[in-house]
């Protein structure tokens, strides 16, 4: 029924389980909270640290991190649809485009709303789009749904290309950035509320590079890091909401629907309503990511929302581990980061990216971070294998 969870436990998976065993001392609430806070701080500080190896040498690391967070946000949204509710959506880019264009139209093309007013409207519009697409199509299942949604992604792009009101194929340019708090950034002045210096590893022991600063809440073309911090904050808020909703009746209803729609219905789950909810929430999060994309790029056009992106989004969810929010984050990060990291290899980078995906699919078909239940199934199988091994030895 569910292709994403059919896998053979690999040697790598068991090795990972063995590697993690000593870390079980952290399996209590206080140390989890402390580790969580540290991880969040590292995530925010990442673009300032200039870590060797991790930092992309051939493109602006702040910009890459923005893309990573944007893809992670998309993957978290799509994970609700694919991972939780089990609906294969191959046209997710349509929602990304809807969010981006709502911001483009509201803040620049027809009106001049401030970004933070346009953002919730963009999310709302995308959710409504999700409901409009879902209401007639969620009655079909499995592969048929995948085909219908794939068509939807393409239809959105074609509508934009042919609608004068949306700027046709020329797109929408000079989309304003979010308002800067504090001094405006300019040449030689990062601006913002206050400035934080970057680290520099080349000038040891003078590791703090006072000549290179980033302004907090300063949104300009030169420095992408404030945009990264903005979308990272949105990502964390979405992740918290995702956890609260998943660990409730709603999450159980999604899982039950994914596992066996008829049985769920007979157990009193209004499956259609819950599938529609998953679709609308996923769409809203995709739209949110699109809105951030529009204000960061300041320019959007239909070609930015090609069907290929949808496949990349699905790849992010599957590579990360469908059904696990942290898997989705990791998958989004991998898909956005790897091609940029290998930009120095120019034409070869997509090949390296493709090989990396194949390696992941072979060695870890359940994803980088499979959901809790899949991990438990691996553990159960490992135990069974151990027991069988003992009987053979005896």
């Amino acid at each position, binding site marked *: 029924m569910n292709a994403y969870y059919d896998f053979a436990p690999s040697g790598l998976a068991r090795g990972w389980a063995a590697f993690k065993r000593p870390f079980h001392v952290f399996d209590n609430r206080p140390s989890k909270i402390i580790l969580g806070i540290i991880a969040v701080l590292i995530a925010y500080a990442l673009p300032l640290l200039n870590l060797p190896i991790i930092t992309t040498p051939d493109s602006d690391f702040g910009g890459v991190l923005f893309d990573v967070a944007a893809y992670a946000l998309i993957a978290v949204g799509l994970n609700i649809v694919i991972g939780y509710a089990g609906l294969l959506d191959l046209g997710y880019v349509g929602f990304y485009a809807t969010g981006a264009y709502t911001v483009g139209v509201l803040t620049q093309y027809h009106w001049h709303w401030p970004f933070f007013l346009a953002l919730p409207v963009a999310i709302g519009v995308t959710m409504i789009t999700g409901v409009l697409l879902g209401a007639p199509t969620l009655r079909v299942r499995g592969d048929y749904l995948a085909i219908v949604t794939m068509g939807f992604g393409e239809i959105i792009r074609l509508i934009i290309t042919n609608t004068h009101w949306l700027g046709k194929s020329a797109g929408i340019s000079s989309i304003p950035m979010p308002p800067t708090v504090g001094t405006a950034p300019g040449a030689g002045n990062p601006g913002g509320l206050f400035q934080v210096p970057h680290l520099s590893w080349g000038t040891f022991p003078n590791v703090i590079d006072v000549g290179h600063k980033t302004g907090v809440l300063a949104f300009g073309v030169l420095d992408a890091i404030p945009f990264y911090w903005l979308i990272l904050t949105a990502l964390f808020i979405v992740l918290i909401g995702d956890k609260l909703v998943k660990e409730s009746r709603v999450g159980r209803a999604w899982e*039950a629907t994914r596992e066996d729609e*008829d049985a769920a219905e*007979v*157990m*009193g789950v209004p499956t259609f309503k819950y599938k529609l909810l998953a679709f609308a929430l996923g769409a809203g999060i995709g739209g949110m990511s699109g809105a951030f994309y529009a204000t960061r790029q300041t320019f959007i056009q239909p070609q930015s929302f090609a069907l290929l992106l949808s496949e990349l989004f699905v790849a992010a969810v599957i590579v990360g581990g469908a059904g696990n929010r942290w898997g989705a984050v990791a998958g989004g990060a991998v898909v956005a980061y790897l091609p940029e990291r290998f930009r120095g290899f120019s034409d070869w980078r997509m090949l390296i990216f493709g090989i990396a995906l194949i390696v992941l699919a072979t060695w870890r078909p359940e994803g980088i971070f499979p959901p809790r239940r899949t991990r438990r199934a691996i553990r159960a199988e490992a135990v069974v294998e151990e027991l069988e091994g003992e009987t053979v030895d005896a």
Partner: protein
Amino acid sequence: MPESHTAGRTLLELDDVTIKFGGLTALDGVTFDIKEGEILGLIGPNGAGKTTCFNVMTGVYQATSGHIRFDGQALHKMPRHKITRLGMARTFQNIRLFKSMTALENVMVGADAHSKVGFFRALFRTPVHRKTEGESRARALELLKFVGVAGRADELAVNLSYGDQRRLEIARAMATNPKLLCLDEPAAGFNPAEKQRLMELIRKVRDQGYTVLLIEHDMRLVMGVTDRIVVLEFGRKIAEGAPAEIRDNPAVIAAYLGVEEDDDAAS
């Protein structure tokens, strides 16, 4: 637990129900009713229409003609989850658990059937959410204990033994707080000892105030546990009565064992 009404009130009523799939008549004018507090057995040879009967009651199929009333309400074209909320729950002949969820979560899905928690109540962790969640969990644990699977509450449903899976299905159906519990061949694949334990469980379920409709192949189990039996053959009701009457009914014996004239006519 459902409150106990005066015994003998009609809970479910099938009135001249016919279902046709193209040229095949799966149910042909079937009429019977279930009284509150009883265990009714529905038996018949393979292909007699027992499961079809279940499916039309629970809204999986729509009757071509005839009426079904549950607790005084017509079920025609009612969505399946609403029928469940009215108080009819069922298990499946071929086990259909939510495999990648734990035993406890499986039962909680059933317990959620009457929950008022939706997206916003869950997102903002309202008091309603906290209260319902606690109640669902407590009820699910209680039911797991009742059917005897409590020790494996945190195990994935797919990892449970066959017998435990069958019992888990009963617990999940009971969690929806039904007035009528429909069991579709709950003893399929059981050995005699397990069948004995299942019979005890079904009696215990009835003693809790549930009404039970039981589809079963095993004659000894049906005779031992039911109050009344309806016999189907080729989609028609051929007999109805107490177990002792059914055992001696020539039409039933003919249906199960065959009679010579029928064999001649068939060949």
